[in-house]
């Protein structure tokens, strides 16, 4: 399973996982790709202040107000706000957080706040992926480069306790599922999904593993958005 298939499942998560998995082959056969190539770079960029606010909306203010904030520039993510609690908030774009069909979708905006452990271990992968994309690499080239870097340990394994907040009311998931419910994600260097009881009937824990990146991601829905309002 590739990283983007994983994100497709997690984005659509909280619908029956089995149905999503079953639907993947059909999705792969879809001939029409509305976003077949990269759009002009400007379409992926945002107003700087709006991006900072959107990034921070991923977590409650008590966390994000003291976090680093990265914003996307023409050559990659740049630290715009230096925080002091070790968290890093960022608005990821399609190439790190959307399904294959939306890989080049310039509308995708995924606010995430990584805790320090994830900022040290998962975030570098997404920053590298972004750097490669903005340098003109294809999706395949990018995937291969990231996997190779993981294998060579140029990119670190997941640190214990790595997780992130994805509780923003805003953002844009993909054209077919514009938004996702508030949730937390937890990262491991490939562990057995059964240890969390993930994807079992009735379990609120969803999970997927990326064999190539040696990465397991768990997602658990939460009741409230980052602003404290209830997800109805």
């Amino acid at each position, binding site marked *: 399973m590739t990283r983007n298939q994983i994100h497709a499942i997690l984005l659509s998560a*909280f619908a029956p996982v089995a149905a999503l998995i079953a639907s993947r082959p059909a999705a792969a056969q879809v001939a029409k790709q509305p976003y077949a190539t990269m759009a002009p770079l400007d379409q992926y960029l945002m107003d700087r202040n709006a991006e900072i606010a959107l990034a921070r909306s991923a977590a409650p203010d008590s966390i994000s107000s003291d976090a680093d904030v990265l914003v996307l520039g023409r050559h990659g993510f740049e630290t715009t706000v230096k925080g002091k609690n070790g968290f890093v908030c960022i608005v990821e774009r399609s190439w790190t957080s959307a399904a294959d069909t939306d890989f080049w979708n310039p509308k995708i905006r995924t606010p995430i706040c990584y805790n320090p452990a994830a900022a040290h271990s998962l975030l570098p992968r997404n920053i590298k992926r972004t750097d490669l994309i903005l340098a003109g690499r294809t999706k395949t080239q990018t995937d291969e480069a990231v996997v190779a870097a993981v294998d060579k340990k140029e990119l670190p394994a997941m640190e214990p306790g790595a997780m992130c907040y994805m509780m923003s009311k805003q953002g844009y998931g993909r054209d077919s599922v514009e938004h996702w419910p508030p949730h937390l994600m937890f990262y491991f260097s490939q562990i*057995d999904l*059964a*240890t*969390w*009881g993930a994807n*079992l*009937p*009735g*379990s*609120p824990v969803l999970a997927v593993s990326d064999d190539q990146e040696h990465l397991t991601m768990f997602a658990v*829905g*939460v*009741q409230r958005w980052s602003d404290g309002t209830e997800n109805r």
Partner: protein
Amino acid sequence: MKRKQTHKMFLVAFTFAAALIAARPATAQDAKQPYPTMAPVEQYLMDRDAEIALARSAAPDAISRDASVIVLTRHGYETAVPGTNGWVCWVGRGWMAMFDHPEFLEPKSSRCRLPQSTGRPLRSSVRLQTHRINPGRPFQTRSDRCNESGNR
């Protein structure tokens, strides 16, 4: 599990956690402890079948039905049902809370009987003071451990 049921579970869990946290400073300042000493042990015990069912209710059936279930007896937790999936379900009692929690020794409140499911990675815990989990083996009682390694 329906979405609302999931939300309800979260709400209960978070409410309890918040109550625990909020209660701690007040407790330290409050001389009145509603449960200052341990009640007769019977008050902490439950009907065995009811305790098994309550323990299993902690997780979806897909997880708990194949889990080991441990129940509280006069001498500690014992394995009532050996499982096959590595999970352990149990009903915690008041003393699993913070030591200065006002209900540390409270014998009756349902919220002090917290059904819990423990995943595979757990090998030992301060909460399981009289038992030890060995991967692939049933729970061992304290006396079993003494038999294994002498009078510890």
